[in-house]
């Protein structure tokens, strides 16, 4: 939240006021030094956890492993201790937090901690150092406390997100939905951590917190490495795909745009996130096999011989040959291989029709043709978006899958489409191709050896 609206401020003030009034008056402060020591350790744990994003934390949620500190406090210190543990979020170590956020986080964690503590007592739990005899009986009240903590925490969080979220796009919903499962898993995991800390406390005291943190930090390190590798991977793939395109001036940036277009369709039809990622890579790699087509064929002007046309038709298979060994692409491979099939069965390389064409291929075909039409070619200027979408609609049902065409058009209408830079053609004739096999408005002309020039 960059700017806090008045309503949001009001909301924060109410949450904070409720938290303070509910928690403060009814409890006398204990003079037990041990209690304060435990509180101090748990608050420290809370701060450390809160400042370090963990593998299971998502961007939308402030739900970090810090909740394990609050839940440990529920068992060890009771409602008051849990509230004080959560309230420490006000002095969070994350510097970029604004005052409003700190206030809200403190109130939210204090409130949910207090409620969890009350729920723990209501379900029959007695806050104290757990003794060996307490297990497994303690698990039930603890589970209740954890559930209450989750509900209140997420409820308050949901409220503030509703009030502050301004630029949320509809497409984000799928991401949110997919993260609910992840969120629940992490809730469960962090609750378990809280229980472990509480259980280990009688044996190893504050060292329990350290012991539990170690695997978490290692996990975080591994997750960081993963994110870094993933970024590197995407960048490398993009660079290599660009390298494949340098040969042909007019198709530079084509793979990247097709990848983006395919991703837009995938989001529009609510594809699972992992499949959506795969199709972006498939879009990126769909024309890799064009490298196997001799340059003189690509640069040829006028009708082609059948051999030349056959060489062009081979490029999806060539592409497949190259990327087949990339294990995770799996379904994306079908998209690369069949992206020139047509719904009416007149495409290549296999002449599949309608439902026989894999979903990935139907998606890539639309994005591919659209980018081709909206780019400059040596034989024509780029068409406008309106003209290109009209052409897509015209070919829907014969060449393209109408569902994918509509999904793409509505995505483009909403999010827009970044057109390629319209620079003049290069002087170097070696970099110019005369024809474009992707262009549905200008099919390749093939000389039929028996009948003379005609359409394929």
């Amino acid at each position, binding site marked *: 939240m960059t700017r806090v609206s008045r309503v949001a401020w009001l909301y924060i003030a109410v949450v904070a006021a409720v938290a303070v009034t509910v928690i403060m008056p009814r409890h006398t402060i204990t003079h037990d030094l041990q209690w304060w020591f435990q509180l101090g350790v748990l608050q420290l744990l809370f701060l450390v956890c809160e400042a370090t994003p963990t593998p299971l934390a998502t961007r939308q949620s402030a739900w970090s492993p810090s909740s394990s500190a609050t839940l440990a406090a529920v068992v060890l210190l009771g409602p008051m201790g849990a509230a004080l543990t959560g309230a420490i979020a006000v002095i969070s170590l994350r510097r970029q937090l604004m005052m409003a956020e700190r206030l809200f986080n403190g109130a939210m964690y204090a409130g949910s901690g207090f409620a969890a503590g009350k729920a723990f007592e209501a379900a029959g739990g007695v806050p104290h150092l757990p003794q060996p005899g307490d297990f497994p009986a303690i698990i039930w009240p603890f589970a209740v406390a954890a559930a209450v903590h989750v509900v209140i925490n997420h409820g308050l969080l949901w409220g503030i997100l509703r009030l502050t979220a301004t630029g949320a796009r509809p497409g984000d919903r799928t991401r949110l939905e997919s993260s609910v499962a992840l969120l629940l898993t992490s809730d469960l995991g962090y609750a*378990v951590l809280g229980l472990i800390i509480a259980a280990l406390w009688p044996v190893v005291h504050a060292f329990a917190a350290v012991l539990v943190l*170690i695997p978490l930090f290692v996990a975080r390190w591994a997750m960081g490495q993963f994110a870094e590798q993933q970024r590197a*991977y995407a960048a490398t793939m993009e660079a290599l795909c660009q*390298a494949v395109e340098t040969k042909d001036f007019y198709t530079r940036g084509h793979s990247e745009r097709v990848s983006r277009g395919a991703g837009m369709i995938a989001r529009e039809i609510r594809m699972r996130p992992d499949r959506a990622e795969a199709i972006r890579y498939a879009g990126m790699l769909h024309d890799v096999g064009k*490298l196997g087509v001799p340059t003189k064929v690509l640069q040829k002007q006028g009708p082609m011989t059948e051999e030349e046309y056959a060489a062009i038709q081979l490029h999806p298979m060539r592409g497949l040959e190259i*990327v087949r060994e990339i294990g995770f692409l799996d379904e994306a491979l079908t998209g690369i291989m069949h992206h020139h099939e047509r719904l009416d069965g007149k495409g290549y390389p296999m002449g599949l029709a309608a439902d026989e064409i894999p979903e990935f291929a139907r998606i890539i075909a639309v994005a591919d043709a659209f980018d081709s039409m909206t780019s400059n070619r040596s034989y024509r200027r780029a068409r406008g978006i309106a003209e290109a979408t009209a052409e897509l609609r015209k070919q829907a049902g014969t060449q393209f899958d109408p569902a994918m065409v509509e999904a793409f058009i509505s995505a483009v209408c909403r999010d827009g489409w970044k057109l390629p830079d319209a620079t003049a053609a290069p002087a170097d004739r070696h970099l110019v191709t005369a024809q474009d096999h992707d262009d549905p408005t200008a099919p390749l002309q093939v000389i039929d050896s028996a009948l003379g020039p005609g359409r394929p």
Partner: protein
Amino acid sequence: MTSHQNPERWPSWQAMDSGRLLLLAAAAMLTVAAVARTAAAHPVLVNPVGQRAAVAFGVLIALGELLRLALPGGREAAPIATASAMAYALLLSIHDVVHDGHVPPPLRISPLQVIAVTAVGMTIGALPHMAAGRPVGIVGMASRLVAVSVVAFSFRPLAHLPLVDGQWWLAAVLMAVLLAFGWLTDAVICALIRADDLGARFSVALGDEVAVQTPLGVAVGASAMIISFATAAMGLPGLAVVVAPLLVTQLAFRRYARIRSTYLETVRALSRVTEVGGYVERGHSHRVSALAVAVGRELGMSEPDLLDLEYAALMHDIGQLSLADPIPGGATVLVFAADQQRIAELGAEIIAKAGVLDKVAELVRYQNLPARGRDPEPPVGSRIIRAANAFDDLVGGSTDRDRRGAALERLRLDTAYEYDAGVVEALSVVAGRRRASRI
């Protein structure tokens, strides 16, 4: 003298199998002794709590072995199994639910019992892998078993000293030290085997092993301590709970290892665009990269450097994509030096565009510079690629000994200026071995 006549390589080559055999024999002997001893124990003396503990830990170990984890570099780990087995070896006491209210009988677990339970658990956990036709990973299992026995033999006699049982921090320190020692044992064994498998130097292999295994090892060690202490506090039902932090860690590592291997797979695959485009001979990039990595290993390069070298070797001809038409016959040593240099520059530019492979781009950029007479000298990786590329251009996929010998002879003649003498020497060793060791 040609490459294949290199007598001093043979002993270490053959020692590989005996080293592995030694490890397996040690593990087998430990297992047999432990199982026999445990089975022969008098049934009346067996503590019922101890029995349940044995079953519970055995199940956990089997589960952990089932959920093995691939680590970068073709390694395999079983963090949950290792942590459970170590925790069993480090067990202080067990809170017993059934005997609640009574003083539980003191728990005596012998080191051999730990080994027996670990061995049986591991074997059961390996069965599904076997059934699914995956590699059994018996060497890894044996290595883990030896590491566990080291910890068990050193900790079990001390576990019931009042000093250890009573002072938690003393127990914690002792556990940490022993866990570190056990972990190091495993790392040394893995490094020995790997060094022999790949023809790497032991010191380098150990360094790589430590670098790769440390983060996970720390997590496993901490988890082993958690499990051991939590069993004292929560009893055996708590076991299912305390594996949770380790599961999260394993999840993170799995994703990391997967993207690493996907990365390598992708670069390997995409490096073939030059072949499909007809720019280079089929299989050239892969042969050069396999050769370059083997030479780099022979020269004692560490794993991260080898990875950069492999990427650079795979993509060393990628600059040719910027040429409108393939050079007939590919960019061989027979093409003009200026052309080669241009291709190298173009390739480096392409790779540098990714923004994350700067070292790789450098290796590609300098791949055509002569090894001598330059200041600064081209990096070792570039010199290796230069020699490996020249060798493959001269030999191709041929395995003909005379042809390989002649190619090496030609490279040697040029070591005064063109090629690095050390690299060519390593190349001749590797080419003589010529059993492709791919990881």
